[in-house]
């Protein structure tokens, strides 16, 4: 399998480094938006978790979509870099999904009075987390095998079926879900749009930066392993 050259790594690093500086600044502004955003009339201050929890969910979805795209490209082109991209997407996606499942219960405790309930959205999110955790375990136990990469690619593509199901489960469940409905245009209160947009931008940039770094780590590991073999 072919691996990226040192020049290709340098090219990625040239983009990643200034993005890291911008990200450090955005994280501070993100905190300022969380503090200064208007207080919701119904839920009160706790509703400000809105500027953290949904952006993490979008990052998790995106990570798992990258795993599927990387896997599909690997099956098609047979290039190791696509398989490495799939691993990077899954790991960063699992980190975002884990944080989503930590921040969600904090919000739930403050509004519903309990940390967890077997609501359809929460249950499917837990399942989604398990599916990609299993993907990462599979990869860590069977490193470097082309057969595993092919199996993981198919698994990663199939796993994305859970994403639309997870997103639309509130509509599918009708009135049985206690989780708030998906955000739509105009569903945010006055003055909440800009902080929410900014929070998503900061989380998205953090996501891109982490995937690029994780991808490079995976590619370097594979190159060293190939040289040692």
């Amino acid at each position, binding site marked *: 399998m072919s691996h990226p050259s040192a020049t290709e790594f340098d090219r990625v690093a040239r983009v990643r480094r200034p993005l890291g500086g911008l990200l450090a600044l955005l*994280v501070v502004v*993100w*905190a300022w938006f*969380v*503090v200064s955003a208007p207080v919701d009339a119904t839920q009160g*201050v*706790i*509703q*400000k*978790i809105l*500027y*953290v*929890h949904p952006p*993490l969910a979008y990052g998790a979805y995106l990570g798992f979509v990258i795993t599927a795209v990387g896997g599909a490209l690997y099956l098609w082109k047979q290039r190791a870099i696509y398989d490495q991209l799939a691993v990077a997407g899954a790991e960063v996606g699992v*980190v975002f999904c*884990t*944080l989503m499942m*930590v*921040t969600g219960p*904090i*919000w739930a*405790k*403050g509004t519903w009075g309990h940390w967890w309930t077997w609501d359809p959205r929460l249950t499917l999110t837990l399942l989604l987390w398990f599916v990609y955790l299993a993907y990462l375990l599979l990869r860590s136990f069977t490193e470097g095998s082309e057969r595993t990469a092919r199996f993981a690619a198919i698994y990663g593509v199939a796993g994305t079926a859970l994403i639309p199901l997870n997103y639309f489960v509130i509509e599918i469940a009708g009135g049985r879900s206690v989780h708030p409905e998906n955000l739509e245009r105009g569903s945010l209160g006055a003055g909440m749009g800009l902080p929410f947009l900014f929070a998503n931008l900061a989380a998205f940039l*953090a996501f891109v*930066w*982490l995937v690029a*770094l*994780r991808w*490079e*780590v995976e590619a*370097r*590991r594979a190159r*060293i392993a190939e040289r040692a073999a």
Partner: protein
Amino acid sequence: MSYAIAAYAITVGTLALYAWMLARERKRLERGGD
């Protein structure tokens, strides 16, 4: 405010820790993985 700040701090703190671990691993691999 404490719940929202806790959620933000956990998120940013975890992501920063993860980024630091990745950067350290990248440096180690750059040196040849020793």
